[in-house]
């Protein structure tokens, strides 16, 4: 076990920002996706694990802060010199002498940015700059806290693809905080759902999906006709513009599929939709809390 959290609490003044009552364990090589709305405690959890905020409870680990690497939401550097010098200082190496670093710079197409100062980089280039240095740290546990926030759709997608490609077939342990479900679908194999500072659910993606959504969900547009059509099926919580139908088994799925196809309704079938899973896990957690 790489790290276990027991009864962790973080308070900001009189406000409880995080309260984890059930033990949470992270094994070596796991990819944990952390999801939750604003103020759910995602960044607070990362900060607590990094030892940046005072907390109560226990974090049992043999890791020291130096064994952890992190890409924070906001990463600032001196703008008094070219980023190449910052990179060489942080990694204590020379770019021309470090094959692996050169590979990463090429992988992220960062070469042309090396002579620029940090404040002259675009948002995506700034993110790439930190990502390269974080990756080169070879840390036992790496955190990515909203690594693509503030980026346009295309840059976000390209960056996520790069990260996914880089970590494919590697056994690095990652904790990825994100508001973007597709990012977590690509990068995470376990999901930690936080709600108002508490753990709403934690487990493998497939297990959580099965628990909160069933075997498969069918997602279609929320129109009066579609609502009427699906009235007899188990409907899950979903964003307002969608209807999500849960299929507990193959027979139910066949029935729904025939119905939708018969009425020429467009739909999406998913057995891993994190958005629907998140909404329903959070809903159930809130009901249990009442």
């Amino acid at each position, binding site marked *: 076990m790489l*790290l276990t959290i027991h009864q962790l609490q973080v308070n900001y003044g009189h406000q409880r920002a995080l309260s984890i009552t059930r033990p949470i364990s992270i094994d070596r090589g796991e990819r944990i996706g952390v999801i939750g709305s604003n103020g759910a405690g995602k960044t607070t959890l990362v900060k607590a*694990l*990094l*030892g*940046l905020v*005072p907390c109560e409870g*226990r*974090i*049992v*680990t*043999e*890791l*020291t*802060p*130096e064994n*952890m*690497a*992190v890409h*924070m939401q*906001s*990463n*600032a*550097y*001196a*703008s*008094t*010199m070219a980023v190449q*010098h*910052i990179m*060489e*200082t*942080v990694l*204590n190496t020379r770019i021309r002498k470090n094959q692996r670093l050169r590979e990463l710079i090429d992988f992220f197409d960062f070469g042309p940015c090396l002579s620029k100062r940090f404040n002259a980089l675009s948002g995506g280039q700034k993110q790439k700059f930190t990502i390269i*240095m974080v990756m080169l*740290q070879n840390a036992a546990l790496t955190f990515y806290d909203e690594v693509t926030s503030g980026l346009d759709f295309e840059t976000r997608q390209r960056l996520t693809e790069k990260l996914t490609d880089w970590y494919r077939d590697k056994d690095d342990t990652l904790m990825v905080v994100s508001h973007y479900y597709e990012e977590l679908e690509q990068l995470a194999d376990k999901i930690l759902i936080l709600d108002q500072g508490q753990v709403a659910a934690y487990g493998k993606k497939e297990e959580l999906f099965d628990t909160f959504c069933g075997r498969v969900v069918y997602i279609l547009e929320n129109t009066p006709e579609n609502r009427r059509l699906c009235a007899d099926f188990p409907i899950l919580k979903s964003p307002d513009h969608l209807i999500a139908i849960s299929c507990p088994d193959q027979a139910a799925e066949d029935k729904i599929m025939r119905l939708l196809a018969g009425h020429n309704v467009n739909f999406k079938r998913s057995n891993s939709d994190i958005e629907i899973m998140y909404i329903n896990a959070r809903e159930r957690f809130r009901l249990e809390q009442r």
Partner: protein
Amino acid sequence: MKKKCNRNLIIYELRNLNGNIMPHFFGIVFPNLMCLLLSRTIGGQASPEVQTQINTSLMLTMALIMPMAIMLLGYGCLYSSEIEKGIPLRMRLFGFDPVGEMTAKIIAHLIFLTLAFLLFGLFQALVMGVQRPAPASFLCLMASLYLLGIIFLIIAHAIANIVQKFSVTFAITMFLYFIFMILTGMMGIRTDQLPTVLQKIAATLPMTYISSDFIDFWQGGSYNFMPFLQSFLFLGALSGILLLYSLYRNKRRVGS
């Protein structure tokens, strides 16, 4: 593994320091300019021999501005603005040891201070015309200025780390800068002209002795160093306590 002070980190700090205008102006241009102006004002009517003595006295006083401007004011401003942006935290998250980082900052600033001394020395020798020092007196002055520089940097670092804000750090270091200048005779008022309470406070500052006493043995002679050394011990201890407190406040604690 924690990243300690290394060559790359010292060069990084030098680049960072060089990119900040404040130490260049207040640490290099300002003391030379002050020497020139005060020399013309105070010693304008004096005979050449007296003028040389006045210039030497002014040089000893104005030399104190360099460690204060570069290490206390300049570094305090640079580091606190970095804290506001989260740069030191980012460096810590990359595994840099705070003590190692500070060692690199001290070394980089001492290198910059040496360059400032060289320019100041050249200006004094070529433009101002000052008395040639006895080697021991010169070494004593240099050692004192370096030591003062280290103490000022530690004080500025600790203040910035404790208050975590550029505006407050700037206000405190600027206040200290002017208070030190007033108390130690750099603003034209001699220490013995100050009220008794302020004289006692001034006696705890090494700058007072450099400013008023060093001229007496600049070209040789004897001097009782004990009060001077005691003032160094006091200021050094104060800076050490402040630093330890600031490091403790910002310590990272992971796991149990």
